[in-house]
């Protein structure tokens, strides 16, 4: 698994790390059941604070991409979850937008603004 970060980028390091791991999972470089490198090892290799890595891992866990186990470490969950999660979020967003009276065009514009 490859992780590349640039401290000069405006994106915070933990977000870059999370994005790299997400990409590795999406492209199949890391598969379900594989263990991610321990936070301490990744932090040491990248020369960043361990809590930065832990934050990235925490975000991935909250997204349902990985499980964090006491002794086993950080394990990748089925990649199928990510798409389903995305669809779920989109549905929630569409429902809330409709409740607030946004048209589809408004919603599209909003998404463009934030992404």
């Amino acid at each position, binding site marked *: 698994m490859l992780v590349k970060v640039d401290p000069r980028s405006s994106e915070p390091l933990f977000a870059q790390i999370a994005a790299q791991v997400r990409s590795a999972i999406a492209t199949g470089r890391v598969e379900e059941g594989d263990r991610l490198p321990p936070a301490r090892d990744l932090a*040491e*290799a990248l*020369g960043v604070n361990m809590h930065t890595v832990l934050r990235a891992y925490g975000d991935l866990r909250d997204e349902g991409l990985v499980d964090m186990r006491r002794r086993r470490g950080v394990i990748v969950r089925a990649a199928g979850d990510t798409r389903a999660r995305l669809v779920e979020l989109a549905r929630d967003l569409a429902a809330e937008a409709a409740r607030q009276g946004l048209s589809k065009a408004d919603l599209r514009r909003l998404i463009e603004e934030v992404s």
Partner: protein
Amino acid sequence: MGLEMDRMQRLFVGAALPALFVGSTVLPWLLVRGDLPHPIAIHFDGAGVANGSAPLAVHLLVTSAFTVSASAVLVWAAWRSTATLGLEAAIATFIGWLISAVSTVTLFANRGHDDWRDVTLGSGAVWGATMSALGASIPVALMVRHAARDRARSRVHRMELAATERVAWFGRASSLPLAMGALLLVFVGTVVLLSFEGGVAPTGIVVLAGGLIMVSFMSLDVAVSDQGVRVRAGALHWPRVELPLVEIEAARAVDCKPLHWGYASGWGYRGSLRLLGKAAWVLRGGDALELDLTGDRRFLVTVDDADEAAAVLNGLLARAMTSPTTLGG
């Protein structure tokens, strides 16, 4: 290119020897089984007096475990299409021969006695078995002709890295056969320790210890970063190899063939960086990362996706060359 055995040699190593080992486990038992004490004597002191015993079934089980494993190695070495390995075949021959000879001699020594304590077996028999085992393994080792160093197509890549980018690569390799071998040794060692009386306990401890050491070679982790390359055994995190970036001159991905002669032949940790300047950590054939080190040294480690590892490493090296201040740290 590679190592070749002709047909006669293949038959000898792959069929005749295994048949001999398995046969000499089964045949003596068939011949004398009605005539043995229960349990049988299996260990003898310096004077030839029995001081260790075991149930016949356990003795046969342990013997079979070794002879069948040794035979499996020989069959596999002989019948693979391209190559055979000298060291492993010689060791398998030695072990298979030794175990089956000792077992045969032990069974015949037990014959005709009512109590295992009456059985005697002079140390000459064991020495004879050991010497003949050595004698048998030498021709097998000599059957292997050295191949020229495998100039296999190696793959060199380099990843472009910006000056401020930080990169880390993690990979691993594992071997199911080695894991199973470790389990087998631990099992056999424990059985020997628990069920034998008397002087056999040290043997059990040795086998058990061997199995536990093999646990270190079930899997490995590799980390590549601007700190260099770190290889660590998966289970126990030992052994470890740490090579700082300053000591690495080049990296490439190669196809490792443990059956071919060379510094990376065989499985496990081969060679020594300090003593021989060359070392290889081999868990399986296939993808491997090969490093050229300072002082004409070389290191190889089998790891999945070695191409990517080499690319990252070469990228780090190239960047370190253009901006020396980022070296080390």
